[in-house]
């Protein structure tokens, strides 16, 4: 018995060690190193003295760090709220319509998913060209006689972030649509038919029966939206540039983090200490907000 127990443990170790090693070295170790690094002062890539929470203090209270940081956070919040409200509501609507076999449902389903597969970089560059002052969008407005609406979309502080978000919704709305479609398809058909025969109206059918039953998928999409919004980087990099032009109007925590960590344009040389502090803030925000949304939506969950 002793021997078989030992060989069993050896087998378990044999199976889990390679994967655990990779995850440990490339995911968990860097997490702890971020925390560690953020507590030191740095000169380029050389670690100097232990400074406690000074890097965080600098990030939150000293010019220009705090101004850039809160400006970027504000933009990330805009990304998050717009995505939740517009993209996920559209996704829910599309998913619902598809699940109810609206004419052409199969075709629409396949079309909606096309942009989801493209790299954000290709999508960003493509729409970046279309949104240029001489690009396709302005040409189209002229074609239909709305030349007065022509704008330098990515060059105006008030329009740049909304334009970026619109492009991102264009690329991504198919994803929540099909996740919600799968969730609604899992609701037992008899339930819907019974309610339908009872004469329950469409509106009530959706909000009272379908919606409560698909809350788990709403939780998942919300968490993915939080992670996505805090990780916005490629969209800005390809469409308005690493320094979030015009005048930092499209700057996000991701681009600010990159500039701080690797040094570029305005930030000058890399600042590992402050950069690590920003990285840690991203970790904490992702973790806490995801946790809150999971707890919040789970309390609303119902089961048949």
């Amino acid at each position, binding site marked *: 018995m002793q021997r078989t127990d030992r060989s069993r443990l050896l*087998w378990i*170790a*044999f*199976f*889990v060690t*390679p*994967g*655990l090693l*990779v*995850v440990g070295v*490339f*995911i*968990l*170790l*860097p997490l702890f*190193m*971020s925390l560690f*690094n953020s507590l030191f002062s740095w000169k380029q890539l050389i670690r100097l003295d232990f400074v406690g929470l000074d890097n965080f203090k600098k990030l939150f209270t000293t010019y220009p760090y705090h101004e850039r940081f809160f400006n970027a956070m504000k933009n990330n919040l805009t990304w998050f709220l717009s995505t939740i409200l517009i993209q996920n509501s559209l996704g829910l609507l*599309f998913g619902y*319509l598809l699940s*109810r*076999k*609206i*004419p*052409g449902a199969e075709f*629409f389903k*396949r*079309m*909606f998913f096309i*942009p*989801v*597969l*493209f*790299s*954000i*970089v*290709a999508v960003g*560059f*493509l729409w970046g*060209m*279309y949104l240029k002052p001489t690009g*396709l969008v302005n*040409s*189209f407005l002229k074609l239909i006689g709305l030349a007065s609406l022509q704008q330098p979309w990515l060059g105006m502080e008030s329009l740049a972030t909304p334009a970026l978000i619109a492009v991102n919704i*264009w690329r991504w709305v198919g994803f929540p649509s*099909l*996740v919600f479609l*799968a969730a609604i398809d899992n609701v037992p058909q008899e339930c819907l038919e019974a309610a339908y025969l009872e004469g329950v109206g469409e509106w009530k059918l959706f909000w009272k029966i379908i919606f409560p039953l698909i809350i788990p*998928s709403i939780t*998942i999409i919300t968490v993915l939206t939080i992670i996505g919004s805090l990780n916005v980087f490629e969209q800005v*990099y*390809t469409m308005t540039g690493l320094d979030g032009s015009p005048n930092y109007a499209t700057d996000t925590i991701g681009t600010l983090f*990159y500039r701080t*960590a*690797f040094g570029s344009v305005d930030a000058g040389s890399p600042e590992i200490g402050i950069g690590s502090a920003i*990285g*840690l803030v*991203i*970790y904490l925000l992702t*973790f806490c907000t995801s946790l809150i949304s999971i707890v919040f939506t789970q309390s609303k969950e119902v089961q048949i």
Partner: protein
Amino acid sequence: MITDFGYRGASNGKKVFITVALVVMALYVLLIAYPLWNMIISSFKTNRAILTTPFSLPEKISFSNFKTVWIDRGFSHYFFNSVLYTVISMAVVLLFGSMASYGISRYTYKMNTLIYMLFLSGIMLPLKAAIIPLFLLIKTLGLINNPFSVILIFIAMALPSTVFILAGFMKGIPLELEYAAKIDGCNDFQIYQKIVMPMVAPAIALVTIYNSVPIWNDFFFPLVFLQSDKVKTLPVGLSSFFGQFSTNWSLLFTGLSIAILPMLILYLFMSKYFIKGMTAGAVK
């Protein structure tokens, strides 16, 4: 089904609703299809024609732009690199991921849940936020400008979701099969290889699509670690190409077409698998 949205037998209000919904959905389809179409026709046009007559068809079809971008501008290299890195990463992910899932789901022991949680923590933690320690680590290992820098990170990036999906599937396989194989003299690795793996083949297909699309498209890590032209992937190559030729729109549209069309063509043939695979992590 009686709950379906169809015109037959629907009330007037419902007909209006269905029509409005169809118009909205058709508009989005147009909004997907037209920009892609315009991208393709623009790659055959001259710069002048793109700016002056953006909606008209190209005057003549010539593939010289494609030849310039594919061969002279090195897109064939970028493309080949992307294929190579994706295939190597996925091969290791599938091996390590399925082994770890087997070790977690087919044995009962104390550390079981802890090991599973360690893997899952990677789903919630954005790896981009760890770029500084990763950069220092890769530098220490001497892997800057070496494809293995991104391959290792891609493997780490994909393992958590692979374990999450595969362990779920493996739990569903009855243990009796395992006992029978043991009596026949199979060791644990043979059970994993000859019994469990063939049974989770559909799940393997799911995780392959679920992870290879983001790996193929990833930009951030190759941007940081692969600076020399020889080792760049397609997204990073596209990005530096945009930096160099920002005024030659005709070539830029050709570059975009080369970056986007392979995925589109693959999708047209396997759309069902792509939809199932990409939503696998979010759908139970």
